[in-house]
Structures are given as C-alpha cells and as structure tokens.
C-alpha cells in the first residue's frame, strides 16, 4: 500500500520534471527574445527599411513583407501538391505507388535545406541569370511538400473508416466520399499540419541564401531579389553594430510572433463547427 503510493508520487514527479524540461527551452528562448528584442520593436520597425550600416534607427518593413511574399509563393506551390499527395497516400494506403511516394516523401523530408536551396538555384536562378523571390518560394515550397503530405496522410487516417462506409452506402462515389466527407472531417488537422510546415519553412535561412538573396530596399516584385526576416537576422547578427544586433533580436521576436499569428488565425477559421468526431 505504502509502496504503491510512493511509486505513484515518484512517477508523477518524474513526469512533471520531464514536462518542465521539454518546455524549458521554449520558455528560455521566448524570455530571452523579449528581453533583448522587445525594446527595439516600435512603429519604425514595421514601417521603415534598414538604415545605413553604423547609423541608428531604421526598421525591417522590407524583410517582413518579403517573408510574407516568400511564404505565399511557397504555400501556393507546396500546399496543393503536398495535401493532394497526402490525400492520395491516405486513400490508397496499400497501393504500390503509395508506398513509393511515401518513401520518397520521407527522403525529401530528410534532404538538408541547403541542398534544396542549391536545387532551386539550379532550376530557377541559373537559367534566368538572376536571383528572385520566385526561386526562394520554390525552395521553401519544395520543403513544404513532404511535410504537408505526411501530416495530411496522418490526419486523414484518424477519420474512422465507418464514416467512409456510411457515405459509400448512401450512394457517394469514392472521390466524393474522400473530398466531401473524409477530407472535410479531417480538415482542422490538415490545416494544422499545413501551418506546421509553414512555420517550419518560415525560419529557413539556408535555402534563401542563393535564391531570394536578400534586399536592403523595399520590394514586392517576385521577379527581383527580396528581403526576408531570417536573412536579415543572419546578416544583422553577424554585423559589428550593437544597434543592428538589437534589430536582429527584434526581428527574431517578430518572426516567431508572425508564425504564431498565422497559426491562430487559420486554426480559428477551420475550427470544428460542432465539436470533435466520436469513435
């Protein structure tokens, strides 16, 4: 009796410690970012472009807009392909092609991001002879494909097969069942997966180094080079100026806030209307 209680309390305590250890890095990062970066976040940060090296003031409007444009291009390329592939994988789980696609998606997932960057450079930059936001978007979009495909597959698999059968028994064709019943039921999960992949590539720096390149001026032209928050964080952090270091911290904080904001907004948009499915 006593032994059982001691074991119970010990195990419970260990679990609390484990949970705390998992949360600790996140909390430390956030605290540090806020302490170092919050003071530099002001109106100028969002409205002005960076100032000349060594001078104070300036902001990151170009990098914020640049990151948003890059994420838009990446989503437009990566999500349709990734989600469609995920639906295919889930609905034909035993097909031979499906296991090949699944394996290749896992391989693509493991490709280092800088290699993806070289690939995008090869197909998007070299032929036209200049860097562009298109190339950066293609690099990030390529990374999103396997991420969103695998999460979409997992989410669709959580939909009970009984729901699929119910739709078929009502006279739904297979594709109608997939799209209007199964995918619709799994949609909140699929969107969450898409956002995770978006958040994951939002902070990627390496694939942008020789695709989007970065831009010290404000630009929204996807055919030209474009600034991005991760690129700015990198170049500002390695600069010798204290003021730029502070801006790098602020940019990191904004990048995290941006990802969080996109996540919350989209989750709200596709929240389950009537609560979760049973079974």
């Amino acid at each position, binding site marked *: 009796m006593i032994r059982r209680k001691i074991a119970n309390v010990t195990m419970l305590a260990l679990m609390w410690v484990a949970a705390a250890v998992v949360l600790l890095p996140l909390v430390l990062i956030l605290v540090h970012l806020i302490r170092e970066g919050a003071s530099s976040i002001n109106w100028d940060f969002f409205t002005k472009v960076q100032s000349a090296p060594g001078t104070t003031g300036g902001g990151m409007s170009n990098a914020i807009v640049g990151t948003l444009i890059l994420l838009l291009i990446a989503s437009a390329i990566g999500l349709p392909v990734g989600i469609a592939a995920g639906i295919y994988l889930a609905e034909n789980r*035993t097909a031979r092609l499906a296991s090949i696609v699944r394996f290749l998606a896992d391989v693509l997932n493991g490709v280092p991001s800088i290699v993806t960057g070289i690939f995008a450079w090869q197909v998007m930059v070299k032929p036209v002879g200049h860097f562009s936001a298109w190339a950066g978007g293609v690099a990030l979009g390529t990374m999103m494909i396997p991420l969103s495909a695998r999460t979409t597959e997992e989410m669709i698999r959580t939909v*009970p097969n*009984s*729901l699929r*059968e*119910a*739709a*078929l*028994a*009502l*006279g*739904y*064709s297979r594709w*109608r069942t997939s799209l*209007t*019943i199964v995918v*619709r*039921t799994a*949609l909140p999960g699929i969107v969450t997966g898409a956002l995770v992949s978006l958040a994951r590539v939002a902070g990627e720096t390496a694939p942008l180094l020789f695709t989007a390149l970065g831009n010290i001026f404000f630009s929204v032209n996807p055919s030209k080079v474009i600034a991005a928050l991760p690129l700015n964080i990198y170049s500002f952090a390695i600069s010798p100026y204290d003021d730029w270091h502070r801006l790098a911290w602020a940019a990191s904080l904004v990048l995290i806030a941006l990802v969080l904001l996109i996540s919350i907004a989209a989750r709200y948009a596709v929240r*389950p*209307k*009537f*609560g*979760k*499915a*049973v*079974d």
Partner: protein
Amino acid sequence: MTNPEPMPAPVDSMSAPLAAPPAGTGGAAGALKGISTTVRQTQPAAEPGKVVLEVTALNAYFDTQHAVRNVSIAFREREVTAIIGPSGCGKSTLLRCLNRMHETVPRARVTGRIEFHGQDLYGPGINPIEVRRHIGMVFQRPTPFPTLNIRDNVAAGFRVMKRGRRPGRAEIDRRVEEALRGAALWDEVKDRLRTGAIALSGGQQQRLCIARALANEPSIILLDEPTASLDPLSTQKIEELVYALRKRFTVIIVTHNMQQAARVSDRTAFMLNGELVEIAPTGKLFTAPSDPRTEAYVTGRFG
C-alpha cells in the same frame, strides 16, 4: 408543413412518451409492447410476399478467406428478415454483398447472382452507386457526419444526386422531415435541426442514420447489428422502429441477439461457418427448427 404519406401510428406514438408520458401511450404502442417481449404468434409468411431480392449461389471472399459459401436465399417485400448466427459466420458479409458494399474492401471478391426485381445486381452495366441508393444500409456504430448539422446529415444523400434530379430546398426540407418522422426522431430534433448531429445521444444518432438512409427512398433497408452499441432503452426504440418500417420497406437485419430477431422479424435465417443453414418463419425457426444445428444454436448450446 404537411406530410403527404401518413406515418404508421406506432412510430408517432412511440416517440411521444418521452415528451408527454401519460398522453402518448396509445393503443398501438401497447400492442408494440406486447410483441417486443414475446415471439409473435401471427405469421405473415403464411401469405408470402413477392420476392424482391433473390440471392443465388453467392460466394464472398476476403483475399483468400471464404466468408460466404454458396448461399441462396430470397427476401420478400415488406417483410423483416433477420439473419442470426455466431460471430464470424458471414452474416454481415452476406448483408454487405446485397448492396455491393463488400467490394469496397480491398481484395474482396464476390461470385454468384443477386437479383433485385429480376435484375442481376452484379451484372454488367450496373452502377454500384445506384444499387446503394436503392438498398440503404445502417451500420453497427452510429455514423453521423460530424461536420454536418442534423438536417444536412439527413439530406446527405441529396447532395450527390445529379443536378437535374436533385430536389429543391423546400422539397429537401419536406423529405428530411418525412425521413425523421419515419425514423421516430422528428419530435426530438425538430427544434434543433441546425445543430451538430454528434451532440445527439447514441440511440438518437442511430435513428438519425436510419433517417438518412430513408431519405434516399430506398426499397430495401439493410441493418447491420444496429443496436450492438446501444443501451436497452435505445435498443427498444430501434426495434419498435424496425417493426414499423416493414409497412413501407423490406428490412434485412443482422443481429447477434436472438431475442431481437424473435421480436422484430417475420422470417429468420441462421448462418454457420459461411453457410446458410436454415431460413424459416421466425416462430418456427425458434420453436421447431428443422436442422439440428439451428436447434443447438437457438437453445444456447453453442455460439
């Protein structure tokens, strides 16, 4: 809104007791109580209905497993046929062959003939989707679509109709009400048709699934252990509903529960190891079966 087709009296009176206990207990409901406890003595099979579904030499397989073995059986119009037998005897598989649901399982195969009003359901040029619209099905676990409200759940079958055949909004509303009344659920949900279907209780969800099948206006309804996941009270409601449904539909019900088969069905089929052992009027099958294996099963000596 008026209901063009008068609903069977027992259906209306059985949902009433929940709302108004004393007023709702009509004579019809009393009569239903009677049959729900004892085997009915009257045998409608004495006046055989027209055969609507005739199965000949049916074999069904899962990969290499031979689940239904050379079964021939006829189902008659506006009768309730129960299929009983121990777990794994192939009764659900037989049921799923009847509306071509069996083939939706990977590596499943069917051979044999199933004639629906004289037309082979497995013949060339037969669209399984059309088959399933004519022969509706309700499963063991309630399966309301979680993203749809109550009304849209019942109307789900209309969504996939071809544009020219799909009724208008008012007509859909009318048929949703008719289906919900037919499933004895209307009084319980009429004030919350726009709320989510998964907020309903398990028994209500199952009746919603029956309403959803009724809305397609099938001529045959297949019930695959429809009360297996329900409590006794909900089970009783479904059983009363099944009994009422036979006024308009042919019902085939698979059940584990022999008392249930005795209460709701006109004829009962007993299956064992994928074979049809015997089919007879329910009263006869339970009291004087012709096959010793049936007798062993219904007297509880195995299964």
